[in-house]
């Protein structure tokens, strides 16, 4: 027999040991002409699915296995299950080892193996120092425990100098134990060039600098895959060892494909004969509830078709499980909503999993479940972010930890982490590393190029640096460790730990499997995503407040196409509204003018990196704004593209084009989608491209159209947004917009109580509420609870800001918003609950509050600093003075010196200087992050006027193209993707101004853009359908002007200086005037003002 298969393969899923991707190893094995290969990562099967998929692709026989590494003195043993049952035993063995210890580790003893040894093919890998007796004994034990023909002794020729001598020893040991010898090369990487990277990861793992790693590293580059000829030459003295690889390969009959038939659990069918029957009954029952007047024909037809397909593919248990989880959430009052391809089915609508009426929109579930692909249904369910854990624990409780587990997420090296770790190995200083890492934005998958390093001020000729950069780039995409997926649950009927090992997660009470989303998809394992969504928390609160305060009942399924709501959306009056509140979305709204539900679906999907990278946004807008007749390249494509005016916007459309337009079979289209999503694309992408464009042109499509479709798919690769998701999101957009439109008080309260979430800070949310006529009152110890509440107030419609005058008939609010104590920075919920509990008729003094609540004086100080004692008639300063004066007998802050000091009752009046208004605002910002008194800018408006700076609310009056200067606090800086522009949002007392900076301008003013809290921007005004931008040409840091707020005559007076000596604030603050010294103790002024949030 002349063939060789390699079994001892360590991939980079043995974290920081192997130095090649599974795909690389498989591809190399194929290229070298091996007859097969087995994977054996350290106590893990995390990489086998990727290897399996690649092996299918390259048509090479693959045996999944594990390298069992023991914590006792037992040498490593490779295990390759011979059938499905043995695989289950192996994964249970790993689960056992992993559940014993903390995340990421595995504690196994030899005795554990014996419990699960049946059906395993075992290769004992001898350690470097051989103890013949012990090894012989081990082989004997294994042989009698496992089947007699399934134990091998692994031999490797690694050029250690004494290879031949060792081989003789092994032959003897093996002969004595009646065990065959098998040839391996104990592979760590696919090709010798990877030795450098293997050395680097070894150093990272051992946390050493490469120069001192010495013998931690391999002595040579021999641990790569070798072809049959080479292995035969190395083992020429015992050719049988090569032949044994074929015998073992034949015995590894288990394929991961067999897991595909893993059945879904099916208990949730209470009283029905089959899951399918239960599903049909539940769906019909739900259908009656959804359509009290009878199901429309179209829906009836779709439901029947879906139920038929579900029955055929046996997916009923899956739907029943999701149904069960959703039912639980309903019962607990947790708001939830499903999305995903299967979620937008009539079944899910009838079961109450989703709220998007399939009758109200186009039937868009083409990707529902496809029979030919046997692709599992995809349902993600969003829950309130604060209460998702309850749902997760319910799932563990109901389905047990043996049968339910969270999917893993493979954390890969990205640009920054790679250069950090590799740089450390090369001994680069912490400072150098920060500078190199700083040349990249956040999560970039690009490495640091030599060019970038040079621009950051490094010597590009430095060999060591260059090497570090190259290796860091090579390391990008390598898995670093496993983490838990945000919420992907796998639930099985039989034991889940017989499918895949289960381990502890970093979080308490969570258990995770070893495979990630793509692996599960590849094997067709069903998964439910249990996700957390802040907006659902907000909406649940909104609905509760609506009911409580206005007696109006509202649910997610209320889809009433309210014109007033759409009118508000069209004006981009959408601060706080789900999804469409970002700058990019807001600038799109007035152009897109959504007027019906499907428009929202498009709106949600269009402002995404995918469509933007695919360059599809503008064609769509153009067609939408000029309703010219669209011509379609073919009727087939018309059916796909008609609802988006001929422009592919959704992932489903891109896939359909590949199938219909380019002649892909569905399986191929799906592989294409997957290929685009993986990071290191192993050469296959170009062949897809050729096939796609070739296929389209062959079907007489325009080359240009074909290319643009391809670009679109490419853009989707990493950011794909399916229509089905967009539809569910659009439903939340509508629901939240409706509340905001009609009950701005309710909306603001719910949003504030759900913080942190969304795009805006509480200051903007409060201000927006005020502009919509809601009176907002400050937190107060006698009025406020922890949460914001609604109090009786005035008609909001009479108080609308002129900008929102059109909403007069839409706004129904009659309440005043009372800010909760949660707004007081540093104040704890527990303390607030104590106040709520003992308040009774109210507190009549600081002392009363202190004595009754027993809160720590430090907590009371926070309340005083936040000016929450107004109802006692105390100013901020007086309250603070009073808190400071509380006698702290018995308190641990008690100062013994104070024991003899007069009691507070006898104190003379404090007679503190009143706080000037500007200072009040600053203090508000410091302790509440917002101020209800005035906007900081209003205090310096006269200065701004003198400089000819335009207030933001006057911008709409200015003609397009004019040069203007605006000034404001920097709220947000945003750089979408790797975009060419930076967006900046400025705020003044009248509103918001949006600034665009092209990269050259940004680079010129970089310190100002990123460092200043208050800037003045000069540039050309652009006004497109009422969306106003200023394209910055000049930027000035005006932060120093804010010190004006601290300045006031009263304070100066107390120092006996005449106002004539008042310094000129415009002057350099270091001019030596008295003010400078006065300001010294306020040097943190700038840290009080919002720093501005950065988004990528």
């Amino acid at each position, binding site marked *: 027999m002349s063939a060789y298969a390699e079994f001892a393969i360590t991939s980079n899923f043995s974290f920081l040991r192997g130095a090649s991707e599974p795909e690389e190893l498989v591809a190399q094995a194929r290229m070298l002409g091996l007859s097969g290969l087995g994977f054996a990562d350290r106590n893990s099967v995390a990489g086998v699915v990727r290897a399996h998929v690649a092996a299918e692709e390259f048509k090479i026989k693959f045996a999944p296995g594990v390298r069992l590494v023991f914590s006792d003195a037992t040498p490593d043993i490779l295990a390759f299950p011979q059938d499905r049952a043995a695989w289950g035993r192996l994964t249970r063995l790993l689960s056992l080892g992993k559940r014993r210890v903390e995340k990421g580790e595995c504690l196994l003893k030899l005795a554990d193996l014996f419990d699960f040894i049946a059906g395993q093919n075992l290769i004992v890998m001898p350690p470097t120092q051989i103890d013949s007796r012990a090894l012989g004994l081990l082989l004997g034990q294994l042989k009698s425990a496992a089947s007699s023909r399934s134990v091998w002794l692994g031999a490797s020729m690694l050029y250690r*100098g004494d290879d031949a001598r060792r081989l003789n020893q092994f032959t003897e040991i093996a002969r004595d134990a009646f065990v065959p010898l098998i040839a391996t090369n104990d592979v760590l990487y696919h090709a010798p060039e990877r030795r450098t990277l293997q050395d680097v990861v070894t150093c990272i793992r051992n946390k050493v600098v490469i120069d001192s790693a010495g*013998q931690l590293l391999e002595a040579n580059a021999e641990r790569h895959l070798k072809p049959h000829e080479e292995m035969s030459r190395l083992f020429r003295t015992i050719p049988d060892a090569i032949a044994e690889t074929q015998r073992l390969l034949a015995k590894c009959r288990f394929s991961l494909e067999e897991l595909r038939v893993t059945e879904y659990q099916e208990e949730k069918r209470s009283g029905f004969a089959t899951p399918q029957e239960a599903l049909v009954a539940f769906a019909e029952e739900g259908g009656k509830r959804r359509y009290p007047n009878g199901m429309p024909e179209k829906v009836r037809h779709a439901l029947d078709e879906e139920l038929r397909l579900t029955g055929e593919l046996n997916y009923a248990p899956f739907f029943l499980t999701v149904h069960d989880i959703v039912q639980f959430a309903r019962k607990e009052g947790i708001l939830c909503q499903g999305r995903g391809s299967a979620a937008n089915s009539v079944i899910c609508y009838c079961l109450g999993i989703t709220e998007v009426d399939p009758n109200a929109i186009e039937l868009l579930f083409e990707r529902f479940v496809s029979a030919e692909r046997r692709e599992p249904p995809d349902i993600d369910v969003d829950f309130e972010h604060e209460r998702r854990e309850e749902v997760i624990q319910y799932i563990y409780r109901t389905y047990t930890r043996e049968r339910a587990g969270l999917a893993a997420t493979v954390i890969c090296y990205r640009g920054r982490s790679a250069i950090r770790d590799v740089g450390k190995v090369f001994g680069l200083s912490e400072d150098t590393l920060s500078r190199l890492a700083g040349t990249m934005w956040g999560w970039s998958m690009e490495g640091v190029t030599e060019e970038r390093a040079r621009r950051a001020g490094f010597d590009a000729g430095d060999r060591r640096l260059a090497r570090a950069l190259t290796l860091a780039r090579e390391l990008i995409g390598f898995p670093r460790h496993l983490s838990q997926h945000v919420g992907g649950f796998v639930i099985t009927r039989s034991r889940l730990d017989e499918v895949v090992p289960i381990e502890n997660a970093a979080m308490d009470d969570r258990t995770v499997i070893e495979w990630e989303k793509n692996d599960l998809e590849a094997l067709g394992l069903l998964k439910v995503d249990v996700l957390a969504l802040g907006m659902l928390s907000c909406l649940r609160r909104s609905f509760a407040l609506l009911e409580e305060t206005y007696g109006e009942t509202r649910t997610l399924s209320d889809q009433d196409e309210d014109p007033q709501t759409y009118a508000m959306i069209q004006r981009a009056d959408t601060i706080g509204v789900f999804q469409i509140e970002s700058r990019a979305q807001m600038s799109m709204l007035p152009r897109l003018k959504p007027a019906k539900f499907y428009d929202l679906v498009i709106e949600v999907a269009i402002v995404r990196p995918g469509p933007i990278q695919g360059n599809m946004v503008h064609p769509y807008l153009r067609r939408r704004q000029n309703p010219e007749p669209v011509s379609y390249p073919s009727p087939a494509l018309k059916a796909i593209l008609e609802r988006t005016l001929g422009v592919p916007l959704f992932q489903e459309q891109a896939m359909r084009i590949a199938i219909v337009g380019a002649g892909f079979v569905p399986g191929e289209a799906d592989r294409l989608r997957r290929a685009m999503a993986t990071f290191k694309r192993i050469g296959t992408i170009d062949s897809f491209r050729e096939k796609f464009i070739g296929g389209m042109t062959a079907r007489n499509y325009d080359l240009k159209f074909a290319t643009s479709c391809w670009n679109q798919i490419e853009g989707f690769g990493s950011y794909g947004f399916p229509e089905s998701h967009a539809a569910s999101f659009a439903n939340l957009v509508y629901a939240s917009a409706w509340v905001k439109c009609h009950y701005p008080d309710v909306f603001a309260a719910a949003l504030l109580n759900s913080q942190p979430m969304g795009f805006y800070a509480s200051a903007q949310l409060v201000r927006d509420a005020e502009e919509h006529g809601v009176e907002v009152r400050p937190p107060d110890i006698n009025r406020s609870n922890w949460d914001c509440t609604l109090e009786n107030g005035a008609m909001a419609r009479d108080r609308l800001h002129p900008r929102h005058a059109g909403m007069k008939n839409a706004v129904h609010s009659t309440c005043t918003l009372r800010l909760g104590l949660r707004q007081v920075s540093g104040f704890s919920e527990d303390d607030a609950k104590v106040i709520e509990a003992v308040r009774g008729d109210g507190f009549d003094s600081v002392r009363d509050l202190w004595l009754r609540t027993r809160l720590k004086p430090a907590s009371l100080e926070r309340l005083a600093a936040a000016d929450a004692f107004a109802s006692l008639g105390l100013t901020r300063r007086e309250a603070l003075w009073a808190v400071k004066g509380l006698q702290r007998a018995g308190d641990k802050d008690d100062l013994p010196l104070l024991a003899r000091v007069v009691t507070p009752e006898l104190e003379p009046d404090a007679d503190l200087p009143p706080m000037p208004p500007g200072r009040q605002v600053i203090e508000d910002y410091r302790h509440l992050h917002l101020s209800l008194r005035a906007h900081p800018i209003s205090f310096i408006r006269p200065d701004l006027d003198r400089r000819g700076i335009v207030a933001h609310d006057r911008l709409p009056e200015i003609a397009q193209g004019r040069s203007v200067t605006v000034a404001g606090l920097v709220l947000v800086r945003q750089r979408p993707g790797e975009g060419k522009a930076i967006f900046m949002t400025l705020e003044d007392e009248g509103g918001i101004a949006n600034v665009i900076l092209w990269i050259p301008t940004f680079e010129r003013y970089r310190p100002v853009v990123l460092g200043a809290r208050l800037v003045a921007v000069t540039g050309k005004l652009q006004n497109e359908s009422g969306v106003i931008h200023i394209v910055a040409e000049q930027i000035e840091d005006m932060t120093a002007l804010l010190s004006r707020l601290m300045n006031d005559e009263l304070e100066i007076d107390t120092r006996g200086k005449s106002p004539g000596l008042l310094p000129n604030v415009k002057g350099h603050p270091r001019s030596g005037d008295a003010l400078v010294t006065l300001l010294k103790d306020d040097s943190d002024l700038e840290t009080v003002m919002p720093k501005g949030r950065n988004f990528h």
Partner: protein
Amino acid sequence: MNDAASALNLKHGAALADTRAMYPSIVVHNADRAADLALLEAIADWCDRYTPLVGLDPPDGLMLDVGGCAHLFGGEAALKDDVVTRLARQGLQACAGLADTPGCAWAMARYGETWVVPPGATRNTLRPLPLAALRIDPETIATLAQAGLKSIADIADRPRAPLAARFGQSLLQRLDQALGHEDESITPRQPLPSYVVERRFAEPIVLEDDMLGTIEHLAEELGRVMERREKGARLLQAALFRTDGKVHRIEVTAGQPLRDPKRIQRLFVERLGVIGDECDPGFGYDVIRLSALAVEHIDAVQSGFTDDYHANELTDLIDRLSTRFGMQRLTRQTPCNTHIPEFAVANIPAQLTRPDDIALIDRDTPPRPLHLFARPEPIETVAEVPDGPPARFRWRHVLHEVAAVEGPERIAMEWWRDEEGHALTRDYFRVESRQGGRVWLYREGLYGRETPTPRWFLHGVFA
């Protein structure tokens, strides 16, 4: 924050990441507080010229009690000018304040506009200054500021009891100190605990024996001082002050912390034996000073009863030889952690290593030759491709037939040190020739993969 940093608009307390985002190419060094303090101390030493009463006020201040000295420099204003000008000449920017009380002077140096406060004007001068001028902690300042109290006047004019109730006595104490209601003295700078002993002679000494005798006596004294603090000297200096002002400084190093006077003296004997001629006593030395420049902790041990002097014999010998011939000349072979045979051992000065530091690295590599050549010698061989052993080889013109061989042991070069990137991998063989010689050969370069014509070398000889 210096002027350059202010010009960039950097902020105190800003996050490094934010600053770096603003200026990607900014270079950051960690603060070196020890160095700052050393500088401050050096300046304090220098200030001895004005008054013996110099107090340190770290991180950046000095307190000088110039009571009774000012007239020597032409009055208070002139004294202050003199300090500031002279410091400025050395590149140091100083702000000075001179007042009746240390507290007021401190305030003036940092917050004041008047530099010299006339007697009796303390209270009025202080009134408009911010509270920070009172040397109170920032937390108290912040709390007072929240209550609207910012200047010294704000609290000086206020009833004292409520202040004491809220902020404790220390606030009022600081106020009283500044105003002169409470005394405050300047703590003069303590000399660092040093290990210096010296002897002055009425009659200069000339003889070397007298000199060494003195050193021994001094060493004894020094040893006692050090023993009290459980220290021993690693670096000692004898300063010999000649009557004509010339100073000879002789330094010796010890391999282990040392305080035995005999051994100290012997080291100086060794050292003087080497440099004897350079120390010409001329008309004699009138002062001899012995100082320990570097000390390390050693436990106080009982000397006497059983004298395990032998334990120290080797280090003693090492110290003496190193002192005589130079540290670099006496080395210890120390294993290094590398696969490359010729770098696997390094010669480290014996004084810098201790036998127990040398943990033998656990090698599972095959044996290495007893004698490894510094330079591998090229040989001619006949060997099988790609990686077979040599059948015979010619070394130093003699042909050897190979009788037995083991290998190859493949050692790749350390790529991170390899500037050019083409260092060749070696295949080592242990070879026994028919004549009985046992040698270590290697092939340089992997046949085919790295080079078409590998060369052969003999790298060492086994016994």
